[in-house]
């Protein structure tokens, strides 16, 4: 049985019934496997930061229900963007344009809602408000999907590197949004959108937008784990030529993934107008930074082939907790950008170090 011993392996005492030919080692315990996941460590860090910021904040306001709800609403848009990005990264493609997609979608959605709802009457009520909001949501998501499809076609069919393609569409999207609004924002969207959805909560606790993001996360998790679509997505990111040779229509698949990422960005755009009652054209420049950080620190591989949806959630929480925590502690909001940038680099650096030591890749 000495053939099983492999130098410095700690689990070298293999049971005797093992076939020496295949040299299998006993599977790891579930707990051990859990802590091999990067996402689990991020969750530990999340808990630590929440405890830390809570303890340091005046009157423990960080732990207050208001703040927790604010965290969740803040996290919603970031999570939606990060989820779409994670799907694309799983297949080995980047998307830097998620922020401008959000902005363009929100502008078109807001204009739709205002256009259909018309001016309010004396009591502040609108005609056709329901239809207006419904169509607004459709326009937001639709714009996002079309935006994504354009990205996907550039990446898959024109074979443009995804970083370059989406960097280009990022400029185009933001520019188009600014042209449409003449450099300003679309304001005074019916306030009912805020009171009924954007700032409303289920059972007075769980904000509706956060619920939407959680549903999206569950659906994607399910998709990756149990469906043909998920297997093919990861195969594509794992080894593109293998996927092609297995007869998978790789280009079409990439476009569909980009469409999903785009649709989620459009949905985030709808959440944006429902939160603020207006668009925030200038407010989403750092969105790609936050989204990429959330995805990458959660254990999704940049090279593709592995996506951790749970990790994306914990990564988003980390980014949002850092942002809000620093503000509550009285730092200027600019510091959060530095903090997130540092987290991104440290996380990827640590991951590389670990991979080198393990010699997996």
């Amino acid at each position, binding site marked *: 049985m000495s053939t099983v011993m492999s130098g410095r392996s700690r689990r070298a005492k293999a049971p005797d019934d093992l076939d020496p030919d*295949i040299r*299998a080692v006993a599977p790891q315990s579930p707990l051990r496997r859990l802590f091999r996941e990067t996402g689990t460590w991020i969750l530990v860090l999340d808990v630590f930061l929440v405890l830390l910021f809570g303890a340091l904040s005046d009157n423990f306001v960080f732990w207050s229900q208001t703040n927790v709800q604010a965290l969740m609403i803040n996290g919603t848009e970031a999570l939606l963007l990060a989820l779409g990005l994670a799907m694309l990264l799983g297949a080995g493609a980047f998307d830097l344009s998620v922020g401008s997609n959000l902005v363009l979608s929100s502008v078109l959605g807001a204009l739709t809602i205002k256009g259909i709802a018309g001016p309010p009457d004396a009591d502040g009520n609108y005609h056709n408000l329901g239809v207006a909001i419904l169509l607004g949501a459709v326009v937001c998501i639709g714009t996002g999907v079309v935006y994504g499809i354009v990205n996907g076609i550039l990446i898959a069919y024109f074979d443009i590197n995804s970083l370059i393609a989406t960097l280009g569409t990022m400029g185009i999207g933001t520019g188009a949004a600014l042209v449409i609004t003449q450099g300003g924002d679309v304001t005074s969207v019916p306030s009912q959108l805020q009171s009924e959805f954007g700032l409303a909560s289920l059972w007075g606790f769980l904000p509706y937008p956060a619920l939407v993001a959680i549903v999206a996360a569950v659906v994607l998790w399910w998709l990756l784990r*149990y469906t043909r679509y998920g*297997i093919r997505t990861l*195969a594509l990111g794992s080894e593109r030529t293998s996927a092609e040779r297995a007869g998978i229509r790789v280009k079409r698949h990439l476009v569909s993934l980009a469409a999903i990422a785009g649709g989620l960005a459009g949905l985030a755009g709808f959440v944006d107008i429902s939160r603020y009652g207006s668009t925030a054209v200038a407010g989403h420049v750092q969105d790609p930074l936050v989204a990429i950080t959330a995805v990458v620190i959660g254990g999704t591989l940049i090279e593709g082939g592995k996506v951790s949806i749970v990790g994306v959630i914990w990564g988003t929480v980390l980014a949002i907790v850092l942002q809000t925590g620093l503000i509550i502690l009285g730092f200027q909001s600019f510091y959060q950008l530095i903090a997130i940038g540092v987290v991104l680099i440290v996380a990827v650096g640590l991951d590389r170090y670990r991979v080198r030591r393990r010699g997996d890749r």
Partner: protein
Amino acid sequence: MTEGTENAAATTPSPPAAAATAGAAADGHFETAIAGRHIAKRFGHVQALTDANVTVRAGEVVALFGDNGAGKSTFLKTLIGMIKPDAGEFVVADRPVSFSSIRDAQDAGVECVHQDLALAPDLSVVDNMFLGNEMRHRGVLGRLGVVNRREMTERADAALRELSIKLPSLKVDISALSGGQKQALAVARAVMWGHTAVLMDEPTAALGARQSAIVCDLMRTVAERGLGVLVVSHDLPRVLKVADRVTILWRGVTALEAPAADLTVPDVVATMVGYGRDNAA
């Protein structure tokens, strides 16, 4: 540990699922599994193939030999639809065919074990075996694209067992397997889906002596099930021993088609390097 040897513990006979996969070959009676005739292909200034011919009959292992640059890989790629030739005809299962993609070849029951194996390292053994052919649940779940992993696992297990391939687990990622295990898996996958012919590009190039022998045994096993096997290889002694017939390419032309029993390694080498042809031409 129970999970660790789920396919190594080969105590029960193969379930019917495996027989169904294998049965496809026995049902369709054909004489010629795959053949390419007078294939020509030019890339820019390079005439890769001028008049390449090969015929693989059902139940037969044919070795395709040739020096580097003789056009073996190009020829193989035309046979599976990856490259469209400029001229020539193909026959699969006695019928003339023209493939425009790998998918077409797969639909005709022609599978290929590529030299780089074409596996996805981050996917499990089962998912790799079924990549592109995933089995779905019945009913609504299936229409949503939900895969039936349990059945896939059973079938993969049966297919691997049938070829006497041992793997530590079907759930591990491919990246955790050894080179020989990956090679065996790639062969098993091709056999599982191919019901007419299995083509192999340098299947023993990355393997040790013992594992090469196993792969050569696999070729015979596959041929005995009524499929045609075409092997491109540099491993002349070993493949010559296992093959029924030999086709030798020389500068894009089929220089020799002969029964393997009539040839020795020096004969093959002489033809491969065009001995006696340079002067004659």
